[in-house]
């Protein structure tokens, strides 16, 4: 069964450094998302991406963050100048586009980002 994959599974970085989190969505899916979950808290929406552009972004997704689909398979989240409070689990998700909007989303296993 196709699944969303994410690399790395765990990333440790120093405050102020830049990180790139990578995702390979399910191959025939067209909507892509990033969410994050701070330990013990709820899953929070960051950004959605469709047709090579951002569809919506949350207040969390400020100029520190950017997303890119550099080729036909990868979807990346870049976090510039990381802060301690960026420590969280980051989930990539994707969903297909069918004849009507399909809102079920398929999540990857997550990348645990630790900022020290």
């Amino acid at each position, binding site marked *: 069964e196709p699944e969303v994959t994410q690399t790395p599974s765990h990333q440790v970085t120093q405050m102020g450094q830049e990180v790139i989190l990578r995702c390979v969505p399910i191959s025939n899916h067209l909507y892509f998302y990033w969410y994050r979950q701070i330990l013990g808290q*709820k899953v929070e929406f960051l950004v959605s991406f469709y047709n090579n552009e*951002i569809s919506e972004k949350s207040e969390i997704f400020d100029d520190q963050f950017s997303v890119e689909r550099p080729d036909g398979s990868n979807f990346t989240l870049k976090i510039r100048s990381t802060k301690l409070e960026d420590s969280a689990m980051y*989930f990539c998700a994707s969903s297909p586009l069918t004849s009507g909007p399909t809102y079920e989303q398929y*999540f990857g296993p997550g990348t645990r980002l630790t900022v020290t």
Partner: protein
Amino acid sequence: SQKIEQNSEALNIQEGKTATLTCNYTNYSPAYLQWYRQDPGRGPVFLLLIRENEKEKRKERLKVTFDTTLKQSLFHITASQPADSATYLCALAPLTGGGNKLTFGTGTQLKVEL
């Protein structure tokens, strides 16, 4: 502001019983309500989706109800098994626009005991 509330306390039930989890929301008019399962350290896994014009949806041992007047969804697992132990998340999605953004509740931890 939009608020989604799920029982913050863990739900412990005996194997074979029916587990019922609640999701309440305020200041929101969702078109779709979804339930996900999340195991520790893993990503959410989609279980069921119910639309605003549907009252009930079933899938195997799972049943979801959606009452837009009460602004509430109930999620039932019948004949529960220890393997059903996990955190269950309620998520809402708007009708149009919003880029299919999902807004999640905090989740309810379910523990099924032998």
